[in-house]
């Protein structure tokens, strides 16, 4: 669907992207993970044609008028217009259907209410993100690029956006989204790219990539700090929550033993930091 090879971009402040290659496929959600200033937005701007790379090639297998829809940085919306008017004008300029029924359809497709008649400046960040996505999806692009879509969202907003992203991928749209937050990408991405200093430092299928690196898990259960099975693995303890160190292969057996000891584990969250993902290939 999209193949970018050896992309390079330099600014006066330094090199933003160095020989970066990326591939996007239909129905696959790819995540781009990196610290702030790692080069994520520069890459997205190049993929969307807003910025010209110094070197490298970009091939998009699409014959549509708009192959890529994107929300880069904050959703750029006309704050003095309503959601309906924003969608209508963005549809009109590219001759996409802009009648009442179509625009209401766009709003519904991203879960926005039809009864909001106030300017979008009154909208929450989550609603603005959804409207931005609705605009990005105008004219049926085959690729959707979302830059830091979870920033500024509360947990409910994050969960709801992840659900929407998965629904869009199920419609065979290739999706690329970035974040500096591991947990969110982990929840929805099939494939992960890790960028640091403009360089691709790690990549792979999410589960494979993370399983090999996760060594810390957080377990929650009533009075779990007293669990004998966990004592050899304990890293930190808090009331009803402990962090343990073990490999991903060990965790099923440990959980089984904890349950047998009589502790009802209500959650087991793998902990991995961005640094863990950056270090392997950088070494």
């Amino acid at each position, binding site marked *: 669907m999209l193949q970018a090879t050896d992309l390079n971009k330099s600014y006066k402040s330094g090199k933003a992207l160095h020989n970066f290659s990326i591939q996007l496929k239909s129905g696959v959600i790819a995540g781009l993970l990196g610290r702030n200033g790692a080069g994520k937005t520069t890459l997205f701007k190049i993929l*969307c*044609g*807003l910025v010209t790379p110094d070197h490298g090639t970009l091939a998009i297998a699409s014959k549509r008028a708009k192959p890529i829809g994107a929300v880069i940085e904050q959703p750029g919306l006309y704050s003095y217009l309503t959601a309906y008017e924003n969608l209508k*004008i963005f549809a009109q300029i590219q001759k996409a259907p802009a009648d009442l029924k179509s625009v209401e359809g766009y709003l519904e497709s991203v879960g926005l209410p039809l009864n909001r008649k106030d300017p979008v400046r009154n909208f929450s960040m989550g609603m603005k993100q959804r409207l931005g996505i609705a605009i*990005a999806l105008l*004219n049926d692009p085959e690729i959707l690029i979302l830059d830091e879509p979870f920033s500024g969202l509360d947990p409910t907003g994050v969960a709801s956006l992840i659900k929407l992203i998965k629904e869009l991928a199920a419609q065979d749209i290739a999706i690329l989204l970035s974040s500096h937050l591991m947990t969110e990408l982990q929840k929805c991405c099939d494939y992960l790219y890790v960028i640091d200093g403009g360089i691709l430092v790690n990549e792979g299928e999410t589960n494979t990539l993370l399983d090999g690196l996760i060594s810390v898990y957080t377990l929650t259960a009533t009075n779990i700090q007293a669990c004998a099975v966990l004592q050899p693995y304990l890293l930190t303890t808090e009331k009803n929550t402990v962090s343990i160190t073990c490999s991903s292969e060990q965790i099923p057996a440990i959980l089984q033993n904890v349950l047998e000891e009589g502790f009802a584990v209500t959650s087991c969250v793998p902990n991995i930091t961005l640094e863990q993902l950056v270090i392997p290939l950088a070494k």
Partner: protein
Amino acid sequence: MMIPLLKVELFKLFRESKTWYAIAAVLLIEGIILTAAYYQGATILELLLDNLRQSFYFEGNLLNGNLLLYIILNSLWFNLPLILMIVSSALITEEYKNGTLKTLMLQAVSKWQLITAKYITSFIFTALILALLMLTTCILAYSIFGSGDLVVYLGTLNFFPAEEAFKRICLAFASGLLSMLFFTTVSLTLGILLKEPAKTWIASAFFLILCSLLLKADFGVPAVERFFFPKLTNAWQHFFEYDLDLNSILMDNLLLAGYTVFFALIGIYLFTKKDIG
């Protein structure tokens, strides 16, 4: 593709509160001038013509609608182009500032069509404001002060009969429109270059003041005096010289129109070549 873009640009322009503030400012200035003329105009005119009254007999009222139209026309020197430049440059700088330009460029829209639509929108807005200014002044000035002969001081006092005066005022407004289009085009091009609203306003005001200063300066080189753009921005004023040189005014207007197209083409070229972001 251009028609939908134009419609959307005009829709956005007239939905922005700053556009209505600008229109209100233009009409308020007009109202202040008319009010001042109503209460103090006769006294000022008496002072100006006091010496002449000792040698000549003036028939009719010289403080009339035509004189008021001429006074309002003089807002083309500074306040009107400044307001128009602020609104026009905002067509692009506000899009940069709010990130909407990125959203626009992520749609199936070509860069040159988008920026050309913005220049055309700026032309339409400028023409509408000038038409509104002329229309409202005509209605108010003629209904309050009536018609009459026009007296204008351009180095010397020039008198025009009422009908002749109105004809010249109409032509001056038309010529003034070209001058306003030139300034608004430059401001939009400056907006493309500078991106930030405040910087663009300062640069536009500086450009306007610089043009006014250069217009008065004597370069001593005939080609510069004839063809340099600041020297062409006052073509509308020549309609109030007693001996009308229509060919010279026409040439000035054509040259200024050429400069306007030139600055617009520079803006379109820069916009299409520059990265967004």
